[in-house]
């Protein structure tokens, strides 16, 4: 059976109150497609951290998901300031977060590291003053 599902959600930068809403909705949809256990958890965690990143740092962004028979492919794209030093941003504990982000319990420099840790493949591209593209996949 070669079935494929695709869906996409816009994320608004700076909308702190709704942080996590989209991730919860995506988790519900994936559950409905029969994805469960560790795969569902890792996907949901990676998406949550990505949603936090867009809301915290970008102007606007998009989370799109493609579910195939053997993997979940997630593209997280944003228009925003971009990441000047990706190597540094990937390090645990490095963060440029402000108080607003820290009050929510984020901004400790764990986000990208957590996302990478949940993924089976991880690619990040960023251009200063334009935005960031994160391409990850999780094997089913």
């Amino acid at each position: 059976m070669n079935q494929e599902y695709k869906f996409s959600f816009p994320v608004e930068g700076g909308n702190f109150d709704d942080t996590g809403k989209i991730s919860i909705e995506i988790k519900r949809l994936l559950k409905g497609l029969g994805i469960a256990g560790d795969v569902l958890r890792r996907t949901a965690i990676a998406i949550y951290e990505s949603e936090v990143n867009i809301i915290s740092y970008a102007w606007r962004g998009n989370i799109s998901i493609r579910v195939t028979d053997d993997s979940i492919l997630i593209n997280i794209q944003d228009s925003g300031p971009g990441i000047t030093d990706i190597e540094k941003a990937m390090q645990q504990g490095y963060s440029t977060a402000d108080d607003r982000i820290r009050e929510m319990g984020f901004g400790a420099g764990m986000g990208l590291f957590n996302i990478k840790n949940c993924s089976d493949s991880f690619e990040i591209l960023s251009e200063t003053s334009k935005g960031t593209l994160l391409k990850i996949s999780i094997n089913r």
Partner: protein
Amino acid sequence: MLGEIDFERQEAFSCFEVLNSGLFPWDLEDVFPGGNREMTLLKIKELLDARVLAGEEHLDTEVTTAFSADLMSDVLAFAKPGSIMITGLTNPQIVRIASIVDNSAILIVRGKIPPDETITLAEELGIPVLSTKYILFETSGRLYANGIVGCIRKIEGPGSVVPL
């Protein structure tokens, strides 16, 4: 070192002597591998004199593991499904995080009462919320002493994250 403690004698021993006597467990995980199967949200509520703010109907849920943090990224990294989240934060994000990692409940410490949005969301997503006046350290210690164990014991290697 003490061979045996004679309680009749009511002699005073130092904590160190008692713990080293081998009669009391240093490590609760040796006594309750994977956590005490008899612990429920109701027992946690009683132990910590906690108020139930949401999910009263789920108090019979068994809880064997916990993760204490005020840093939600750490909860995302380390919390196990079914564990109780112990935190001093009260914003609605804690409920969404709990739903993502499948926490069995949220236990808010230091007597904080969350805003209505947090409670409404918790009812909506079916996640029980309790609030205790004990501080994070006391709360964690009291639960550990009753056989609730951590989601992980320590970080492997030089500050790396344990694979999920």
